[in-house]
């Protein structure tokens, strides 16, 4: 047998967790990637203007759905006792949360790379103008908000999983978190609609609203993650006795 040496650096679980999340959450990943890509391509073909104004706003919704595999692994690992083992091996709860969070973000990257890559390529090849508002909408809001919303969903789901007894179906974290995870993006859409409806808001104001919304969600993510060490104690992660 190999012998133990506690001075060695901790191993990274991210690659294997990402692989597991891609397998367990393949439906979410394929759905999020597929629908976002399809929508992007259809918008480019039907109306390049609509693509520039609408597609970035929808990206967070599909990114969040596509990233559910990370949370799926977390909820299964709790029920199956894998988290209990990892705690016994000396991994901290914060490390487990961070691992799931990073896995979710990696899955969002897949959704974004495929959908934005494919639609932007078609947009450029078809002669669509690369304007500043498009870049702000895509990279000042769409892409970062997709990460922020996915992080929000993952953290919310981990809190929910840890604070509730295991359950199946729509009332489980996996059943409801995709719906709750996209709420920040939906709220931002509503806010943009309200601001735009006032009529006196220019592109700069709208861009500012989008960037601020994105920053606010990221701040909520960071706060929830920081509080996880205090609120989610080890016993919350154990398999049911």
């Amino acid at each position, binding site marked *: *047998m190999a012998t133990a040496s*506690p001075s*060695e650096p901790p191993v990274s679980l991210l690659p294997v967790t990402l692989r*597991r999340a891609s397998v367990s959450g393949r439906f979410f990943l394929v759905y999020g990637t597929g629908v976002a890509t399809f929508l992007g391509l259809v918008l480019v073909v039907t109306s390049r203007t609509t693509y520039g104004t609408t597609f970035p706003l929808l990206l967070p919704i599909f990114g969040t759905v596509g990233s559910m595999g990370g949370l799926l*692994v977390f909820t299964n690992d709790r029920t199956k006792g894998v988290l209990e083992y990892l*705690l016994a*091996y*000396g991994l901290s709860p914060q490390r487990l949360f961070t691992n799931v969070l990073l896995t979710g973000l990696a899955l969002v990257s897949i959704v974004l790379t495929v959908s934005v890559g494919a639609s932007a390529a078609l947009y450029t090849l078809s002669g669509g103008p690369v304007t500043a508002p498009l870049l702000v909408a895509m990279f000042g809001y769409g892409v970062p908000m997709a990460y922020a919303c996915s992080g929000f969903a993952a953290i919310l789901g981990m809190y929910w999983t840890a604070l509730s007894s295991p359950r199946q179906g729509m009332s489980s974290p996996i059943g409801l978190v995709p719906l709750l995870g996209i709420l920040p993006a939906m709220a931002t859409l509503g806010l943009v609609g309200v601001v735009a409806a006032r009529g006196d808001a220019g592109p700069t104001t709208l861009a500012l609203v989008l960037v601020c919304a994105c920053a606010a969600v990221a701040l909520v993510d960071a706060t929830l993650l920081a509080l996880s060490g205090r609120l989610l104690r080890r016993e919350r992660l154990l398999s049911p*006795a």
Partner: protein
Amino acid sequence: MTDPNSEPLGGPTAAAELACRDVTAGYLGSQVLREISFRITEPAVYVVLGPNGAGKTTLFRTLAGILQPQAGEVRIGGEPIDRASARDRLHYLSHVDGLPDGLRVREALEFYARVERAGPADVERVLDQLEIRSFSDQFPSQLSAGQRKRASIARLFLRERSIYLLDEPTANLDPKVAREIRTLILRLSQERIVLYSSHNLFEAREIGRYVLALKAGRIALFDRIENIRASRFVLGLRLLEPTVALPGFRREGDYYVRELSGPEEVPGLLRDAMERGAKIREAREMENPLEELFV
């Protein structure tokens, strides 16, 4: 699987000590264990017994460093359990199999090997040692309960430790697989401390050298198993030809049964029965003294 008397699994390890001092522990403020104290240094199987809710799983989780004691401390080799060097001396097997979803058995072992910093050669060795190579390319959902348990236990052999905490490792297994797992555990215990929780009293007597009985979160008894005597000793004899009259015995099914003052009377009674022509097929203690620990 191999003979329990063959060489110890994994070779010798450094002497270990597992000590609990006034440990009170539980979940989210509630107390399940209360003022638990013991110190273990001798390599052996220590069977942890107790009725449901007595605190067995909580004790294992606390010893493994998963639950932090509300009071008192757990030390491994003199070091607090929250130190990596102390934690690295023990293995923990929970009552659930802990096989990750989405991974085949081999991949699950590779996953744990990565966590344990063991190598691919260790995974290959364990696949053969635990005889799981034949189903190593299957997902846990495709395995029988016995195969799943064996795959789960395989983790324990990826890396050498000196203390093993096994929470109901043979629960819900058929007798053959349970026996194989007990054999493995006996081999482990030749050089290591093994704490083993079970509801099976006969199993406890078969492999345990010590018993640690919990009742309502406290240690009710901690002693060598041979020192534990039932309040009454009942001898049962089964004969090849149950036609002989044995004075003082009554019939209970296939057995001739008699209550004695202690096991020291058994040799004389057996001699007497054989002199009367009884061909004894089996002699056994009818009441397991460990049963009383559950009352």
